[in-house]
């Protein structure tokens, strides 16, 4: 089976705009703008400013970690898979990075590399369980999540490791109101966008998510595509763990699960217009979804709303958004 240079006819990631098409990606950014305006007005009525220096910083900081996890989640969801192990993986990689660094400047690079390597191995395990053992992705990644959880609970009771001051710059430095880490996250998002829409393996991701049998029969190596997607997803979660370690100054076993990164990242991806069944959507929408969630949080904080009310609104926003997209899909393909 040799990979032929035939272009695989996958669903084009971004439907060519014949007129001004109201794609989910457009909707999610429109919604973000509306949300920013409504939020600003509401906060303004209480005598505050939403989008001042501190507010912007807050939004970007919240978006960075979730954004990194959600970028990876986008790729696996596009292949028709999903990853429930990311939350524990974020905690694990933060620990690996912080413990390797152990407060020494010289160990920064080995710490980062080791954390990413651990993440890649976890992704590989996820992918192998799904492709070789043929376990359903939901169960496979849930199982891996439980294994990671067991490891974390057995070995750690609280924060561990020590991140040198130099490395904490990654978490706290900023250019104007925008944190450097947020820019790095956006750069990774751009790289993923390029990968998904401009590279052959990226097209294979859409092909496998659209219909795995058709993709296989057209000569796509479906196993390899799913494996790649899972490794990339876990590496992205690894980046999130490293970022959080640099912000917290140490590794924290439950930093990922406390933020419910597993379900939250899936919510951001779906909010961004990516189909949960795979094959349609993209990173651009996901980033929009992440910023909507971050803006909602920041607005509610500024309004001093009960934190639990956020969950309620989040649930309603999620369902409404997907219902909206579903409506549009029906119009297109009966």
């Amino acid at each position: 089976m040799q990979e032929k240079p035939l272009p695989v006819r996958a669903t084009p990631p971004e439907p060519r705009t014949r007129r001004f098409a109201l794609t989910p990606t457009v909707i999610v950014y429109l919604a973000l703008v509306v949300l920013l305006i409504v939020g600003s007005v509401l906060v303004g009525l209480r005598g505050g400013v939403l989008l001042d220096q501190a507010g912007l910083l807050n939004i970007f900081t919240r978006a960075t970690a979730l954004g990194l996890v959600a970028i990876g989640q986008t790729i696996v969801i596009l292949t028709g898979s999903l990853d429930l192990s990311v939350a524990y993986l974020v905690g694990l990689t933060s620990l690996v990075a912080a413990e390797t660094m152990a407060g020494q400047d010289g160990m920064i690079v080995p710490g980062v590399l080791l954390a990413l390597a651990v993440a890649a191995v976890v992704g590989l395990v996820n992918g192998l369980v799904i492709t070789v053992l043929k376990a359903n992705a939901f169960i496979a990644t849930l199982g891996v999540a439980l294994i990671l959880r067991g490891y974390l609970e057995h070995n750690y009771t609280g924060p561990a490791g020590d991140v040198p001051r130099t490395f904490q710059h990654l978490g706290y430095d900023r250019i104007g109101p925008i944190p450097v880490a947020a820019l790095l996250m956006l750069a990774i998002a751009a790289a993923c966008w390029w990968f998904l829409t401009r590279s052959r393996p990226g097209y294979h991701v859409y092909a496998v998510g659209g219909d795995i049998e058709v993709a296989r029969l057209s000569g796509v190596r479906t196993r390899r595509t799913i494996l790649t997607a899972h490794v990339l997803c876990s590496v992205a979660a690894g980046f999130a763990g490293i970022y959080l370690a640099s912000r917290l100054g140490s590794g924290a076993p439950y930093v990922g699960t406390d933020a419910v990164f597993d379900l939250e990242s899936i919510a951001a991806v779906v909010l961004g217009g990516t189909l949960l069944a795979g094959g349609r959507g993209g990173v651009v929408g996901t980033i929009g979804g992440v910023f909507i969630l971050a803006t909602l949080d920041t607005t509610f904080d500024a309004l001093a709303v009960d934190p639990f009310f956020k969950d309620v609104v989040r649930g309603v926003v999620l369902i409404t958004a997907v219902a909206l997209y579903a409506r549009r899909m029906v119009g297109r393909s009966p």
Partner: protein
Amino acid sequence: MRLRLAEGTAPVLVVLVALLVGLAIAGPAYDSVEGYLALLKRAAPLMILAIGQYFVIVSGGFDLSVGALVTAGVVIAARMIDGQESATAWVILLVLAFGLLVGLVNGLIATKLLVPSFIVTLGMLLVLDGAVFLWTGGAPRGALSEGFRQFGRGSVDVPVLGEVPYSVLILLVILVAAALFMRSGTGRALVATGDNDQAVSLSGGRVDRLRLLAFVLSGVLAAVAAILLGGFAGVSAQVGEGLEFRAITAVVLGGVLLGGGRGSVVAATAGALSLEALFTLLNLLGVAGALESAVQGVIIIAAVAYAALGPRTRFRTSRQPAPTQ
């Protein structure tokens, strides 16, 4: 009625028997009927949740909201009863009605608004969790009445078996009803919906109504589980935490195909009992609580991989989870 095992039931029964034998060897409490009845009593809420989850999964969906629904049910009951014995009856009805309502909303959004059930019930999970905390401020108030707690803790004297917990009786009634239901036309249509909803639709089945029914049943059964757990485990805002994943795990352990169309309800229930027996066995063997989840993870993967790669599997393209639609 011919007695035959539904497809995919055998492996989980083997696992279950192995675990029960393991229990008998490892624990002195398991050489009498009482020990096993106590195990059943502990497992009853999860088994009931698994039955509800089975209906949704076999028809091609997911219900992630059941854990939050259990918490909501317990918290509502405690607040409404507030220790008054006289309030027990109507609060039980209220909790059941609440479960029905949540299931109805889940089902209506999934079928009428065409939102994948994974997302609908994830949204419902967020809404319920948030609402419960908002309402209670994090610490549930009120108390359950003795009458309410009877369902989860009480038992009744049965000849031969001795003291049989109410929860085991409730479980048996629900299990028998569910098994009979799955043999009826509606039950078979439900499974067919999960396999190929277009075929069901073309042959005159009402796909939307069947799916709606599955969600409503799941909601009501989650409310029943809440009533049992409230009595058994007491009132807390964490009582239902993680139960949705545990119920899904149980169902999958029972050989039910995620994505729908395959599997039996008895096997799903056996899956839940196996899971509970596994936890008990791990406890008896002194596996540290922390490693318990790791062992659970390995076993889930092994069970699913066995089901997928096992010797007598029919050819079936292993689609990744395609929640509804």
